[in-house]
């Protein structure tokens, strides 16, 4: 009986230590401060409400007839910049990733797109080098295993 209990305890202990950690350790950086964001965007929210309830209205029309909605807002007319900001990948990965995943092709793309922006090209080049290193290492290990098995089989 005692032996069975001991074995069961060892089993449970092994199981628990193999599970991923579930410590209750969160981060405040993942909490959304809705009040703060609403306060920052308060004037824009009012302008937005007007635009949404008046379909097709443009900035010129609002400036002419409802200028109070744009008072206190230094409004930029640049939707292309808004789209660019909306489409960015997290962590500014793109230049590195282009080089890492597409090799010299990705490096060339970054070089052309960024007009030889040295920091961006350097990131892509680094990605390209690291991915090449990973591939070379993979094949070295693979052939090592194949040749090792072949040698032991003779």
């Amino acid at each position, binding site marked *: 009986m005692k032996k069975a209990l001991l074995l069961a305890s060892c089993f449970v202990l092994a199981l628990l230590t193999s599970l991923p*950690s579930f410590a209750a350790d969160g981060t405040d950086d993942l909490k959304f401060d809705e009040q703060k964001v609403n306060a920052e965007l308060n004037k824009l929210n009012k302008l937005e409400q007007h635009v949404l309830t008046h379909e097709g*209205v443009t*900035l010129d029309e609002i400036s002419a007839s409802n200028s109070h909605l744009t008072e206190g807002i230094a*409004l*930029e007319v640049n*939707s292309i910049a808004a789209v660019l*900001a909306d489409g960015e990948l997290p*962590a500014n990965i793109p230049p590195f990733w282009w080089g890492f995943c597409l090799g010299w092709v990705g490096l060339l793309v970054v070089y052309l797109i*960024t007009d030889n922006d040295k920091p961006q090209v350097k*990131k892509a080049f680094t990605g390209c080098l690291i991915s090449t290193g990973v591939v070379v290492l993979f094949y070295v290990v693979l052939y090592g295993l194949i040749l090792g098995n072949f040698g032991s089989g003779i």
Partner: protein
Amino acid sequence: MKYLVRIVLLMISLTLIGINSSIAQQFYRIKADVSIKEKLANGSSRLSVGTAYFDKLYGKIVYKFTFPKVETIIVQDTTVFSLDAKNKLTDARKALILPEFTIFHLALTNRLSDYGMKGENTYELYKIDKVEKKEGKVITTWIPNDPSLNKYLGSLVMSNNNKRLEAIAIYGPDNKLLSQQFFRKYVNVKGVEFPSQVTQLTYTIKESGGGDNIQQTTYSNIQVDQASENDIYRHPVPLSQLPALLKKQAAAGPK
């Protein structure tokens, strides 16, 4: 022999049913009314209101804005094109935006829950470092897969609630918080889970005079696999006007 033939036919049938099921669940197109509000670090603001169209097969995003002015913006390949109300090309900028990592593509392919981090790429940049549970949410920390990348990439921390991505916090290699994204007010349209509000906060280096940017995008009237408006989803870019525009931009100098 007859028994064997029946088994083989059954296996083929089951395989075909499985293939058909998986194809039936592949969504390919999404449309949504969008409103993008921004407050920038330099004190200025932007508001853009219109409709976004994305078709996975064409690989382009088309924005038909009505505010601040009537304008069409097309994100295609590695360029963002701007067309005025008469479809005349007014701007073209290079951009490293990958359609596979836009919220539209990730939602259509049911990969928004990990923001595409568990991608099919042979070499993955990030790996899971730890998974924690707090207040009913799953907190996942991603770190660079190769230690040599630590000089360039920091960690990513994600929060999921009931398999829905709620927040991402992105850190630089020096562990400083670079940006946060919050995905809220999810709606389910034909089986596609989509956050109708996405808020992004980006922090620039304060020592060099930078500040914080806030961008909040609201999506509404979401439609999945719409059969009509094909001409908008595949909106052509008047590339014949590009040489003249590029010449004009070169003469004007860099922005």
